[in-house]
């Protein structure tokens, strides 16, 4: 990947952070940590890997994305808005009564959302079903399934993984966002997941692991997974909850952040200014 593409994608990732942060700060609360941890991943997928037509969200030949960790909806919405699926002004309606941007993704409401998720675990099976349908139709499209590490507490995920591995559905690229935290604390304390890579390998998956903010690494891993024949595939994203902004990375309770005191509001303001400046600078260099 050339330097220009890396810059373009890193800008896209920061735009996801910027728009997510603006949206959540405006609302006063929201799922920041898990939206930030997949910002680079979403940038690589939407900015390079996925076959999509944002102006035609239901295009039959599109790749699909299932955000099974549905609470990262704000991050996905920020990405979809940046890709042009809908106007950015819509982001400000997040969670409002009657909005098309509910807290968790709803395919019937939001252009670009391929599957309704949020009841954790269920997106894994839905993605497996989409992969099955695409395979039966002999289509070469991919389904990108993004699971949370906490989400994998749910037994249904492992039912779906067994199914994907058994039927060798390598057109479903399973991505585990291993950001090490769930709502109540560290995953290792709540329900130790042990080693996801080993677990997935034991389940029959060809598995790679890459740093969550490594754009080149994520892209190369997806390319490698796409070359795997006759085996289900998985990418473990070694990420950080709140990734990309030191203040939010170290904030203890960063699953759903409440913008309710001076310190956090000031940090958000400073982050917004810094991201805007940095995005502008990189975009100017990258022209």
């Amino acid at each position, binding site marked *: 990947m050339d330097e220009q593409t890396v810059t373009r994608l890193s800008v896209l990732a920061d735009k996801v952070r910027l728009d997510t942060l603006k949206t959540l700060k405006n609302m006063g609360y929201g799922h920041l940590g898990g939206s930030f941890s997949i910002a680079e991943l979403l940038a690589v997928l939407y900015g390079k890997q996925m076959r999509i037509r944002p102006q035609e969200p239901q295009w039959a030949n599109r790749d*699909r994305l299932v955000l099974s960790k549905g609470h990262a909806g704000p991050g996905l919405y920020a990405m979809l808005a940046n890709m042009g699926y809908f106007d950015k002004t819509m982001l400000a309606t997040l969670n409002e009564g009657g909005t098309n941007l509910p807290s968790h993704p*709803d*395919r*019937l409401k939001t252009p670009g959302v*391929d*599957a*309704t998720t*949020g*009841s954790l*675990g*269920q*997106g*894994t*099976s*839905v*993605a*497996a*079903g*989409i*992969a*099955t*349908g*695409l395979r*039966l*139709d002999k289509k070469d499209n991919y389904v990108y399934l993004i699971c949370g590490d906490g989400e994998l507490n749910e*037994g*249904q995920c492992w*039912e*779906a993984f*067994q*199914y994907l591995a*058994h*039927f060798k559905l390598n057109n479903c690229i399973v991505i585990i966002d291993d950001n090490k935290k769930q709502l109540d604390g560290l995953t290792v304390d709540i329900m130790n997941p042990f080693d996801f890579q080993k677990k997935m390998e034991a389940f029959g998956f060809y598995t790679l692991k890459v740093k969550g903010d490594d754009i080149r690494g994520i892209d190369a891993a997806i390319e490698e997974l796409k070359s795997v024949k006759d085996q289900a595939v998985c990418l473990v994203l070694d990420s950080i909850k709140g990734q990309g902004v030191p203040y939010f990375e170290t904030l203890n309770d960063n699953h759903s952040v409440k913008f309710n005191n001076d310190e956090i509001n000031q940090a958000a303001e400073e982050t917004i200014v810094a991201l805007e400046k940095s995005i502008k600078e990189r975009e100017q260099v990258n022209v």
Partner: protein
Amino acid sequence: MFKQIETAELGKELRMVVVDTIKELMDENKRVIALDADLGSASGWTTLEGTNKERFFNMGIAEANMVGVAAGLSLTNYIPFIHTFGPFATRRVFDQMFISGGYAGNTINVYGSDPGFAAGPNGGTHTTWEDVALMRMVPNATICDAADEVQMEWIIRTFSHLQGVHYVRGNRKAVHKVYAPGSTFELGKGNLLQEGNDILLVAAGQLVYETLQLAKQLVQEGYSVAVIDMFTIKPLDKELLLAQSKDKKLIITIENHSINGGLGSAVAETLAENGYGIPLQRIGVNERFGQVGTPDFLQAEFGLTTDKIYEQVQPNLANLN
């Protein structure tokens, strides 16, 4: 149009009716797909593998995943039919059916087999008298209880043409015939099988046969009895129910289900909401879990044979005179 059949003979096994119908549908439409959760040999669904191997999936003992995969198949414009025993098709996967199915606007056609006493020797763990109640809570879901083989075939065929969550319950084994071959029905419409002025019997599923036997007995005793087969429990045919209830002295609902949340509840709600203060008796299972035994034993044990139903309605009949 439907036509009744007068015979004491049992029909074809309902599981094979379901399988044969799906087999035909798979041949007719390449988008029809069948999933079973390791009960293929108990349901006959493994035979689907023969003609359409690539569109039959044994999902293993993983019902939640089966429902989710069906939802994903619906998102790629396939028409999924899924099977497992009634309790596992509803209770066990309620949130999956509700969210990945109903809420997400996907199509899932479900055959929940061996409801209620049909669970037989599998015992209380495999018994559901709650499936209809649960599925009634899924907005816009369709719920049918098949009276016999002719109706079961018609229901499966009809589901294949519609979008949404559709649930049909039915014995795996053979049940008594009620309808003549070639009978057709209308989803959401009850079938008025017999007209009468004193008592209205409203039944569904394989107890429609017992209800007709009960009606005969009551007619012999001098009562004028109307019978409705309310095979679509949701949406309920309120129009027919209210029209037939109007001048009755007693209404009795009969179902192989809990009296809480099933046909009896749906009928009671409709009557009450429309100001019909007519005595209503709900025959069904009342605050009990299932237990083990042959289906015949269980049907009697839970008061659902013609004789046992007759015993239960006796006190209310006495009040009519």
